[in-house]
């Protein structure tokens, strides 16, 4: 490698272009404007501004990092260049927008957007400010890179936490309402939107300080430190976690209970799909079908509306589970001879067929058609009917515990090995005496069972089911979460659900852009970290294998 002190300006122009392009995209799809009402620090800056500044900053920083060997002055030059290019693209957007009515095509190219981008200073001055900001960004990126590691780390942490807490203002305030005295304290830190300046300052110093202080101390990840604990301590950890889980809805209130329920439901489905996709390697895009079957079975058997049966929820549950398990079996039979991508499309087709059938006028007398089924029974324990989100949470918790246990046990069993072998090499697995059909069917049916359980609880939670709830996007949600979490990894399912289900639930502006972000996330994840956030160890090796790792066999 040549020790060249000059830098290739092309790379930094590229970085700037990339950052600028992303910023323009975020602006034009409407994210910047949507988040511009959301202050991070009240009166100082908004999430909208973060959204168009961050891409340029990050892209510049990444480019600089790749060229760390440059001299300081060159680093600054490069940073300025990249930042300037990035902001110039945004400025160009503003300039063009001020001359041509882009709005005829691009509905978000609104005066409001230009106002946000130019900080409300009009086109001329705004562009100057924007370009200046670009230089500032570049300088900041370079300066940031030159900071000592410890300070940089502390700074990063502090910024991230301020952003996070600022964004989650509404939630924190909402939860705090449940805790009278705390509420008024918490509300002091927050403004009507975002943190107050003082709040932000306190938070910034606090996090920065703590993380500065912690720098260099041995870090252990949670799982490892858990494993290293003595048995007694371990049980204590489990006990405390259990207690927290038990009282979570009481601590957090209905708002969070709803999110918890949702997350739990998706984890339940995720664990099921994880068996199908992660363990057995069968990509199932029609997973929602089994969810629908579980939910509808409960509906049909408990709702007085259809006049078929009026069981209690508990009585109907076994039928729902059986129905989804059998459906997994029956639907699985014909499709399991297929491999890979064909299977994916066919299962997608199945999901759609099920949706079309529950929606159809044909089956309306039994399934309710588009009017759905209402007045579905809710489970009761003795005299207590579980009908609030907090109460239903426990139902989810029990289901989750059960299912997670089963998934975990199966993973290390003879069956789990067979799934893995089939995933690795189907022909060879068959030659080992593994019946590929029945083994795959078991994976399919077990996955279906879990999904059916989720559906059954879902029906109880809503007391109604509609065909519109059974769409393809549910399958995509579940698939995304297990992939983001890490295919085949059980803790990954939990992480994935927290990231993909809880986060958009927490940030309401986000809902509109949910699938945009999912899509981008899936692509980026597959390109950079195909094994997911919490990978299963084995899978990680497998997905990074590009060329045969061993020198080709027949050399």
């Amino acid at each position, binding site marked *: 490698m040549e020790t060249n002190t000059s830098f290739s300006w092309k790379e930094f122009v590229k970085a700037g272009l990339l950052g600028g392009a992303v910023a323009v995209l975020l602006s034009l799809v409407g994210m910047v404007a949507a988040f511009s009402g959301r202050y991070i620090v009240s009166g100082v800056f908004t999430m909208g501004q973060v959204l168009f500044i961050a891409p340029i900053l990050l892209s510049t920083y990444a480019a600089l990092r790749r060229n760390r060997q440059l001299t300081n002055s060159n680093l600054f030059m490069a940073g300025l260049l990249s930042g300037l290019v990035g902001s110039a693209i945004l400025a160009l957007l503003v300039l063009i927008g001020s001359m041509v009515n882009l709005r005829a095509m691009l509905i978000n190219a609104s005066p409001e957007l230009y106002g946000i981008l130019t900080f409300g200073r009009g086109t001329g001055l705004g562009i100057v400010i924007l370009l200046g900001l670009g230089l500032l960004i570049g300088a900041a990126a370079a300066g940031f890179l030159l900071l000592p590691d410890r300070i940089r780390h502390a700074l990063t942490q502090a910024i991230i936490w301020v952003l996070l807490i600022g964004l989650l203002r509404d939630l924190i305030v909402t939860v705090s309402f449940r805790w009278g005295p705390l509420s008024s304290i918490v509300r002091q830190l927050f403004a009507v939107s975002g943190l107050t300046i003082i709040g932000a300052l306190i938070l910034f110093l606090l996090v920065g300080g703590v993380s500065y202080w912690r720098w260099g101390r041995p870090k252990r990840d949670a799982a490892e430190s858990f494993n290293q604990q003595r048995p007694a301590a371990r049980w204590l950890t489990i006990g405390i976690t259990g207690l927290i889980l038990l009282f979570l809805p009481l601590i957090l209130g209905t708002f969070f209970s709803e999110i918890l329920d949702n997350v739990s439901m998706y984890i339940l489905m995720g664990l099921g799909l994880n068996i199908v996709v992660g363990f057995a390697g069968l990509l199932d895009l029609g997973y929602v079908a089994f969810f629908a079957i579980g939910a509808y079975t409960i509906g049909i058997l408990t709702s007085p509306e259809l006049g078929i049966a009026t069981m209690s929820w508990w009585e109907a549950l076994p039928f729902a589970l059986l129905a989804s398990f059998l459906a997994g079996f029956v639907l699985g039979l014909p499709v399991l001879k297929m491999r890979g991508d064909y299977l994916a499309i066919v299962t997608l087709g199945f999901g759609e067929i099920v949706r079309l059938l529950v929606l159809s006028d044909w089956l309306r007398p039994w399934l309710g058609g588009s009017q759905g089924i209402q007045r579905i029974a809710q489970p009761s324990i003795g005299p207590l009917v579980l009908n609030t989100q907090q109460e239903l949470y426990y139902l989810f918790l029990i289901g989750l515990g059960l299912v997670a246990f089963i998934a975990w046990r199966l993973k290390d069993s003879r069956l789990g090995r067979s799934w893995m072998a089939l995933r690795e090499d189907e022909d060879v697995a068959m030659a080992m005496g593994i019946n590929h059909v029945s083994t795959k069917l078991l994976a399919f049916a077990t996955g279906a069972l879990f999904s059916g359980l989720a559906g059954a609880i879902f029906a109880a939670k809503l007391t109604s089911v509609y065909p519109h709830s059974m769409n393809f996007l549910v399958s995509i949600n579940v698939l995304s979460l297990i992939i983001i979490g890490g295919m085949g990894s059980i803790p990954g399912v939990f992480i994935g659900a927290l990231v993909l289900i809880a986060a958009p639930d927490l940030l309401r502006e986000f809902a509109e852009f949910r699938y945009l972000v999912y899509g981008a996330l899936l692509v980026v994840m597959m390109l950079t970290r195909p094994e997911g956030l919490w990978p299963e160890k084995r899978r990680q090796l497998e997905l990074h294998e590009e060329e045969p790792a061993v*020198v*080709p066999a*027949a*050399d």
Partner: protein
Amino acid sequence: MPLLEVENLHTYYDNIQALRGVSLMVEKGEIVTLIGANGAGKTTTLRTICGLLRPREGHVKLEGEDLAKYKSHEIVYKGIAMVPEGRGVFARMTVTENLEMGAFSRNGKEEIKRNMERVFSLFPRLRERRTQLAGTMSGGEQQMLATGRALMASPNVLLMDEPSMGLAPVLVELIFDTIAQINKEGVTILLVEQNALMALAVAHRGYVLQTGEIVLKDTAENLRKNPTVQKAYLGME
């Protein structure tokens, strides 16, 4: 100046090192063979030369020009053709189409025609089967086709990877005869072979590769006499 020169190649598969500083050279008009056990790096060396793999260190030079700046498909234009391991004929294309693909890098219609004639005279069998799909031919015929296809590019250097693999012994002899004949017509050949006995019989010089390193180099004749080679690769006790 040697026609093909390989200097100090270090090639990796992910993080597993397959070549540890391989250097060799091939003079114009020679047949040079590379022998070694499975996993020694023979195929890797060939793949690195023709650009399918990128070395982490080292150079491949053709007539003194470093090939690092060329992609694998551009290297063909420089005059290096390869008969890949396992033959790699296009199974769903006819014999003629396969040969045409071999001439992909050539533009002159005349030249292509001439080359085609040359291949057909070298392997009369192929002429008979011109319109047959390559996938339906026997292993020996496929080997002929693969060799012919490589010749269609009018190469200066022909890289051959295990041409005798999986062939009937009776065909092996034929293939090696052809190799000698092609060489006589002026094509320089770098030959990787498991069948060291045959390879050393036809080659001028040879290199012995072991776990990614050249451990021996000499004329073919001397190598045949070398007791280590005899023991390890020729199976003589």
